[in-house]
């Protein structure tokens, strides 16, 4: 999978998580599973588990140090040049 595809996938998965968080379609019932776990809490904890898995994947596969290094290096050099009145 290319870097660009990975980034697109990350955006899509994040959007799905956000949509699942905005769960106004879900009926509100005071059901308690196993006698102690309210449905509302179970849903949120399940969502958080998905978010944790997403972040595990994101930080290992999508978070690119090289890309950020390149982005900031080029701009920071330009800032330093601007402030010292030099040109590269």
């Amino acid at each position: 999978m290319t870097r660009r595809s990975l980034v697109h996938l990350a955006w899509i998965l994040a959007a799905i998580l956000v949509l699942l968080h905005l769960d106004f379609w879900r009926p509100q019932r005071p059901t308690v599973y196993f006698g102690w776990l309210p449905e509302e809490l179970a849903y949120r904890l399940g969502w958080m588990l998905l978010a944790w898995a997403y972040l595990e994947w994101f930080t290992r596969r999508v978070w690119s140090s090289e890309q950020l290094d390149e982005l900031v290096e080029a701009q920071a050099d330009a800032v330093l040049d601007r402030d010292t009145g030099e040109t590269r």
Partner: protein
Amino acid sequence: MSGTFGQLILAAVIYVGVVLVLGFVATRRASKSPTEYFLAGRALGPVVLFMALFGTNNTSFVLVGIPGLSYNLGLGVFGLNAPVVALGIPLTFWAIGSPAWRWARKLDALTPAELYAKRLGSPAVGFLLFFLFTLYTIPYMTQGVKSAALILAESSDGALSMTMAAVGVVVIALVYTSLGGMRATAWTNVFQGAVFMVFMAACFFLMSSSLGGLSSAMEQVDPAKLVVGTGGLFAPRAWASWGLVIALSVIVFPHMLVRLMSAKDERSLQTVCRYYPIALALLWIPAVLIGVWGSAAFPNLENSDEIFQKMTAAHLPPALGALGFLAVLSAVMSTLDAQILTLGSMVMRDVLEPLRGRRLPAGTEVWLGRFFSLGIGATVLILAITWNESIFGISRKAFEGYLTLFPTLLLGVRWARFTAAGALASMVIGNLVLVLGWMGKLPLFGFLPPFWALVAGFAAAIGVSLMSRPALPSTAVAREE
């Protein structure tokens, strides 16, 4: 809390002893340079960085304010806050924290306002950022001191007044922050974070046991408190707006961003992001359940912020009373110390030095930072004693205000075409929209005022930047594109 006053005093003495020793040890390494004092030499590894960020992020807002809110609104408070925070905070660490960490190193910036002023080549951006950071941080500090003082005064059964408790909290934080700077506050945060995490875990198990087990505890709760309510923050557009506020405002806390700038390396930041959701769940579940269970155990409380203290007093063994006292103290102090340090350093770096036009000697800079921290501590102390509003109410104002700075902080480290004029317009217009929204002068269409402030802030940032002269040479802009 059920500990006797003697136990509370003993616990406080041990607590103060530990944080002062940590502050003293850190002092030996802290006075060498401003970078060492304000950013711990940019060398915080994953464990200390995680605890420093987590301890700073979570204050009495979670330990006292959230049980109070859950007491009134039920389990929906968990869904309203915890999940979106667990995803949003790590993503903003990546979106803003990681490039800001790089920019700070490259430009030798010690504060967030200094970073953006240098990046955009505009002291005015630094001044305005400093002003707005301070404007929204002082109330946030105030709610921390106020809630800690409330809990401590109540725990002492009248032996300690609110004023004395507030003075104690501020003085202790000032002493060890002044001693050791960022390294001291980071090290003490490891201890403080461990105290309040252990306490909240203990609360969950011991309270449920005292209530007859988890099933029995849940059975006693009004079924209406086990679902998401209707209206207010639970209305769909308000829910979505609040999600933005709570998820995006944390990175804007100057005391959080400056801690990210203290990271040793990128791997430390990534590790923090992986563990953040788990730690947040472990902290928020007990915080919300204390309020929900408390609504059954203590119905009709006049001040719902008292539920944390009432539940711990009623359902924990007496010996744990002192630990509860320390948990609140730790949660407040681990945030307060970072706020004091950050605002102190910002006064120095973002106001005095730009006005003087030259850098102060390193030793003078550290000492003046300490002096201004004292002034900020005194201001917060006065406000904590005199300001009469709920913990959640004060915190909410601060969070909504912080959100108005999000466009500037994001675009400033991610968009080469972003300009100082765009940043100034974004902050001014965003805050204007927020205040008008608060005053009820704008049609909100069901959204909260900060939602529109964010939209207006982004629109102004992008529109004005495209109409103004680039802050960077066209070659740098072109390279990004």
